[in-house]
């Protein structure tokens, strides 16, 4: 058994295509062929990273057969099913390219779109996201919830991306590798990075109806998205100053408290109005809440000081912009040697 953790050995490749697979035994080979077909005309050295997300069928065996013939296909097998975001995170952790492309493993994305993504990155964007403009999914269970979610994410984060859920995305490796990916955060990658100053482009992509099997990654439930969104907002946009964020949250309850307490103090001294225990008690309660939130913010400051994911990645990105440094791109991608892929089937 190989060492399971740790960063992969660096290989000399320019582009890594990452696809999570979960019970996709029929699709693996087709997916592999279509990606290779789409990339063979590009003068790029590339690798494929397939992540088997604890499939219960023969997905891993199929992928292994392909990998035996192609040293530039890396297959990562999970011990059990962890979900799409961890699978993507693993692929990103173990990819060596300077440019990373993530896509679905179920053939719903079209690898022929990949060159457009590369073009956009060459134009100087840090992240390029796909927009499935003619989405081939069920309207009520998938399209409508996703439209609401996208609208909401756009509103809260201020990054109006039409399709956060599209897996087909391209990243500059140094941008995405610095972003903590966990839970179901892949939906929020553009928002997170854009808050950090990344330049984002959105392009239309083809979307195919599912050929094999069932939809595995369930529909986006609004409730989860809502809470995740609140978490993202807290974590990213107020990360550097949590005390401020919590103080803002505390203001309404402090105001309610002051109002109620003032009125009951008034009742205490004036003869016309009676002192009311419920009103005074409510005032005290909201006062306590305000204090709680304020202290919670102070606690967050402490957590930030001791934690290790400080918002440095934010500054490293913006610094690049401030300096007006040209991102590595266009020229050196194209003057690369022809693909070193071994025997192509």
């Amino acid at each position, binding site marked *: *058994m*190989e060492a*399971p*953790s740790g960063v992969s050995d660096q290989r000399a490749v320019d582009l890594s295509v990452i696809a999570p697979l979960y019970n996709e035994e029929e699709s693996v080979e087709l997916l592999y062929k279509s990606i290779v077909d789409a990339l063979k005309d590009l003068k790029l050295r590339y690798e494929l990273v397939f992540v088997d997300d*604890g499939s219960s069928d023969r997905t891993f065996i199929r*992928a*292994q057969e392909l*990998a035996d013939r*192609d040293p*530039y*296909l*890396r*297959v*990562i*097998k*999970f*011990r*059990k099913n*962890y979900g799409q*975001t961890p*699978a993507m*995170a*693993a692929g990103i952790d173990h990819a060596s390219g300077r440019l990373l492309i993530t896509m679905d493993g179920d053939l719903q994305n079209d690898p022929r779109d990949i060159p457009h993504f590369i073009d956009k990155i060459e134009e100087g964007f840090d992240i390029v996201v796909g927009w499935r403009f003619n989405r081939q999914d069920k309207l009520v269970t998938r399209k409508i919830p996703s439209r609401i979610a996208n609208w909401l994410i756009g509103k809260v984060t201020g990054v109006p991306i039409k399709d956060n859920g599209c897996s087909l995305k391209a990243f500059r490796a140094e941008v995405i590798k610095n972003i*903590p*990916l*966990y*839970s179901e955060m892949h939906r929020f990658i553009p928002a997170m990075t854009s808050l950090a100053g990344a330049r984002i482009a959105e392009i239309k992509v083809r979307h195919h109806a599912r050929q094999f099997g069932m939809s595995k990654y369930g529909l986006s439930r609004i409730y*989860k998205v809502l*809470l*995740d969104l*609140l*978490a993202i907002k*807290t*974590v990213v946009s107020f*990360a550097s100053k949590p005390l401020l964020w*919590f103080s803002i*949250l505390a203001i309404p*309850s402090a105001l309610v408290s002051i109002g109620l307490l003032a009125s009951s103090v008034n009742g205490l001294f004036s003869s016309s109005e009676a002192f*009311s*225990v*419920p*009103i005074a*008690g*409510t005032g005290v*309660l*909201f006062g*306590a*809440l305000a204090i*709680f*939130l304020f202290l*919670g913010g102070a*606690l*967050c400051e402490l*957590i*930030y000081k*001791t*934690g*290790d*994911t*400080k918002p440095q990645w934010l500054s490293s990105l913006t610094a690049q912009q401030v300096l007006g440094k040209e991102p590595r791109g266009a020229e050196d991608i194209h003057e690369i040697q022809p693909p070193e892929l071994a025997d192509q089937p």
Partner: protein
Amino acid sequence: MSNTIELSVIVPVGERYDDVRSLYHDYKRGIDASGLRYELIYVLDGDRPEVFKELVELQQQGEKLKLIKLAKSFGEAIALTVGFDNASGEFLLTLPAYYQVDPTEIPKLISELQNCDMVISHRWPRTGSGFEVFRRRVFHGTLKLFTGVSYRDLGCGVRALKRQVAQEVTLYGDQHRFLPVLASRRGFKVKELDVAQSPKDYFRGAYRPREYLHRLLDIFTIFFLVRFTKKPLRFFGMIGSLTAVAGGIVVLYLVIQRLFLGMPLAERPALLLSSLLVVLGVQILGLGLIGELIIFTHARELKEYNVEKIIN
């Protein structure tokens, strides 16, 4: 090398122990039958002068056993961890310092390790009063309800596991009982095997009420660890928003009554109750946000996935 150790047997000794000598010989017979080269490690959790004396005597008689004594009592989870750290075998076997499982069953447990990562024993058929059976059912039923895993005998300390399991799963507090739950959460295959109960296995004394509370809190901790470690806001947010919304609806109702029906607010304790709910809900949400921040700041060291194999 022909004399490398294949199996490390770890015996944590806590408050409860049976006659050291006879237990040692019984275990030894059982392990010998497995045909593996093994080492035996006793971990004394704190000061156990009687046990210590007997073990030293055994050592002097030429019995090969490693003896580790902890400076004070840290609990079984830590004793096990120390044992794991000092073990050199590829396979590990934990045995309690008292009779639970018939020692002749040991080889069966170890050979089952070929097919999975961890083997835990289920004493069956099992003796015990009706109340004990009921208590066990409640414990495992509650665990199943909260975490969705179903085991039947987590109280049994006879477990065989691969080294990697012990390396990856960190234990603290009272979590040794839940080692199988934590291991399967990390993607290891855990198997429960029916084994014969030792005729000398009997429980002395009753649990104090405090113990029950501890077990319940343990289950809650495991539940939280298993389900929500990565998304605290999902958990706190659910409870918090329900509480706050319930309170908010009552407040709204009272305010409407005040404005349109003229019922005075000032004399209604319901106002106090409902605003208490709102405050509580917001506090719970606030805790969730703090939790989320903790996860975010540690996201890089907390890998969410476990890789079994990498090709190329």
